[in-house]
């Protein structure tokens, strides 16, 4: 087959794509890339004098080429950043906000004229490990060791929330900055709760009680994005982690034989979620709704709670009534839980990279450093209604939307009590199998014990994955 070389060359790209008859799409962008390329590659990289304020040597009056994924966060924040960058460095930025990262960039990476900064996200992101193995990613460690823009006596690495560097590291190198800090849990309307006189629950029993009250009032208790069981899995898994502690979470990520079966915390968690189904506290029809449909129903006060990550507020911006007062709620705890109610699942996402062959690599690095300043972090929080990995990265004087503000508060309350699952990234097949089981559970077609059985079977199957040897956490 002649494709055992190191690189992921043009020939291979075409051959691969052709394998499933998908030839037309890659070739089209391929041709257009050839037509427009060439101009940048003839010029050497711009380089200015290195100084304390300019640690990477950005050339004044250079060019910046920024490509961002235009998804749930939009791309207004990036435009604001570019304007700030151009103002400071006298550069001219070209901006591209797109959902087709692979389509637009794969040929540019292959042609050796990639952009200077890329937000490599969304369904069509380029797989990071592939880019890394083909030496396409610049090492961002110099950014971590550069002085912070807010406080030059500090290094950038000391201003980041824990876990950011680990998450962006491939083969011992820090190559991607996962910029958006996401917290997961339940969400409710502050206005609705005030009107009805409900208090946000801290234990699962209280949670069920509020759901029951909602049902009495003619609403649904819990809405969930039934067509995508990913969301209800957040609830199940968070309950397991809180009840059984971090050990229970790691047992799942590490594919242990008793991750679910014989794990009392897991059974208790699944039974707790099933209680919502059994007591008929779900929003009618929610099991088959898409994420937008169910979230919109929740925005229309048809249900008390919905599970989601902190992108929810921005995603629902247009559907949310002005006085809705969106509020975050950590997943309530079961009796005898090892983690406190305040503990939340939190993780960094939205990886930004600087290509190794970027024409203006110093500019790219400086751009990343600027992103980690409080000024840019605040811009992001305001424009994209989400948190960043910069510790206390939002100006206290700035007014955030209620949901984002409540997430900031919850994150402060959680302190070091944050946790995050990794199996979803490591074992897609296992993740999908567990999602299928959850869908059956919510539709009352299987019982909690059967769910446990199926989840454990998925774990056991994943344990045979060749990656299982490398993917371990402690």
């Amino acid at each position: 087959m002649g494709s055992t070389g190191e690189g992921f060359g043009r020939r291979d790209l075409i051959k691969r794509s052709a394998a499933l008859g998908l030839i037309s799409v890659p070739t089209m962008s391929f041709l257009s890339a050839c037509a427009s390329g060439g101009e940048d590659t003839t010029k050497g990289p711009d380089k200015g004098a290195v100084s304390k304020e300019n640690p990477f040597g950005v050339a004044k009056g250079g060019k910046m080429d920024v490509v961002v994924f235009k998804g749930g966060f939009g791309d207004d924040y990036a435009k604001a950043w570019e304007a700030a960058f151009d103002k400071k460095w006298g550069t001219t930025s070209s901006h591209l906000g797109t959902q087709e990262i692979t389509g637009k960039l794969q040929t540019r990476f292959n042609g050796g004229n990639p952009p200077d900064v890329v937000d490599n996200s969304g369904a069509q992101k380029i797989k990071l490990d592939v880019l890394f193995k083909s030496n396409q990613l610049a090492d961002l460690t110099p950014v971590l060791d550069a002085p912070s823009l807010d406080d030059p006596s500090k290094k950038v690495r000391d201003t980041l929330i824990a876990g950011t560097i680990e998450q962006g590291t491939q083969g011992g190198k820090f190559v991607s900055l996962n910029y958006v800090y996401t917290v997961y849990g339940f969400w409710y309307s502050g206005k609705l709760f005030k009107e009805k006189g409900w208090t946000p629950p801290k234990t699962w029993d209280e949670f069920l009680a509020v759901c029951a009250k909602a049902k009495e009032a003619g609403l649904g208790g819990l809405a969930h994005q039934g067509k995508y069981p990913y969301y209800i899995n957040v609830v199940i898994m968070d309950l397991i982690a809180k009840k059984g502690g971090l050990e229970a979470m790691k047992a799942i990520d590490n594919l242990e034989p008793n991750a679910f079966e014989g794990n009392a915390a897991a059974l208790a968690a699944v039974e707790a979620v099933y209680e919502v189904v059994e007591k008929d506290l779900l929003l009618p029809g929610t099991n088959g709704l898409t994420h937008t449909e169910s979230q919109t129903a929740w925005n229309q006060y048809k249900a008390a709670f919905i599970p989601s990550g902190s992108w929810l507020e921005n995603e629902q911006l247009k559907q949310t009534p002005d006085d809705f007062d969106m509020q975050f709620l950590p997943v309530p705890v079961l009796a005898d839980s090892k983690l406190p109610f305040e503990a939340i699942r939190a993780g960094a996402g939205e990886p930004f990279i600087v290509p190794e062959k970027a024409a203006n690599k110093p500019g790219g690095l400086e751009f990343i450093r600027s992103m980690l300043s409080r000024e840019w972090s605040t811009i992001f929080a305001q424009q994209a209604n989400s948190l960043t990995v910069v510790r206390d990265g939002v100006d206290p004087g700035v007014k955030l939307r209620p949901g984002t503000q409540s997430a900031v508060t919850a994150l402060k309350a959680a302190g070091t009590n944050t946790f995050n699952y990794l199996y979803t990234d490591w074992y897609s097949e296992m993740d999908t199998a567990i999602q299928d089981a959850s869908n059956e559970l919510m539709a009352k077609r299987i019982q909690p014990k059967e769910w446990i059985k199926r989840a454990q079977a998925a774990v056991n199957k994943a344990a045979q994955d060749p990656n299982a040897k490398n993917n371990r956490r402690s």
Partner: protein
Amino acid sequence: MSQVVRGRGRTGFIAGFLLAPLALYLTFVIWPYVQTFGYSFTNWTGQSPTFDFVGVDNYSALMKDEVFRGALWNNLLLLVFVPAVTILLALFFAFMVNAGGRGGAGGVQGVAGSRFYKIVYFFPQVLSLAILAVLFGAVYRTDEGGLLNGVLIRLGIVDRMHPIEWLNEPRLVLWCLLLVVVWHGVGFYLVLFSAAMQSVPKDIYEAALLDGAGRAQTFFRVTLPLLWDSVQTSAVYLGIAAMDMFVLVSTMTSGQFGGGPDHHSEVMATVLMRNFLYFGKSGYACAMGVVMLVLTMILSVITLRATRRERIEF
């Protein structure tokens, strides 16, 4: 002598025109198939340029894969029902629109308003499958906001608190999808059959009419035999569509690339795509692709053979 030279020149001329398309066909149609076949014997992940040869492992794993077998079964079900239901309905409507009327004495014509029906029937064909998925997503919506549920709840047939979760019901999901395909296809085949019917000389119908043939007799003794070629072609086309179904299933049902709930609406193409793009088992997915290709080819041959009849000249 000169005859030979001229002949050669002509051959070269024609070959020149044939070579380029042939080369394109070989490169972009045949070569990918060959490649897929090659990849189906490897453990290629789709994300790395390196892979190992694993022999027929993928194929033997495929035999044991319950999800794929379920998908194959669903494809076969659709293969029976999609062409049968679509063609029967299309034939019925086409006959009614073209020759079902009994208005004037001796005249062969469609039922009243048949021109209007023809246009309306063709409408669904204009819509792309993506729009269709959105449209029927609203029809099958699982809460009372869905068209079907809304109507049924109004009529008091369905409990407001427990609406029918159409596409989330293992027993219903495949039939719901079947309905969409049939709804989409009938109009096109109606127009196709109409055109075929109109090319049938009117005097044959008039003769049948004079001999006292009823609608049913006219249809089965005259129309259907004369339309057999079109019906046969339609069966092959619809059969191929039933073997695919990817767009509808992947957009309308739950799961990564559709197939939910719990694999009850799975078709081979959705299992293939999930393995290819999501599970990183591209070699395995290529094996599925080869199986699909072989099945579709067998299917076409069988359909054409089984439906072969003596041609009627008119």
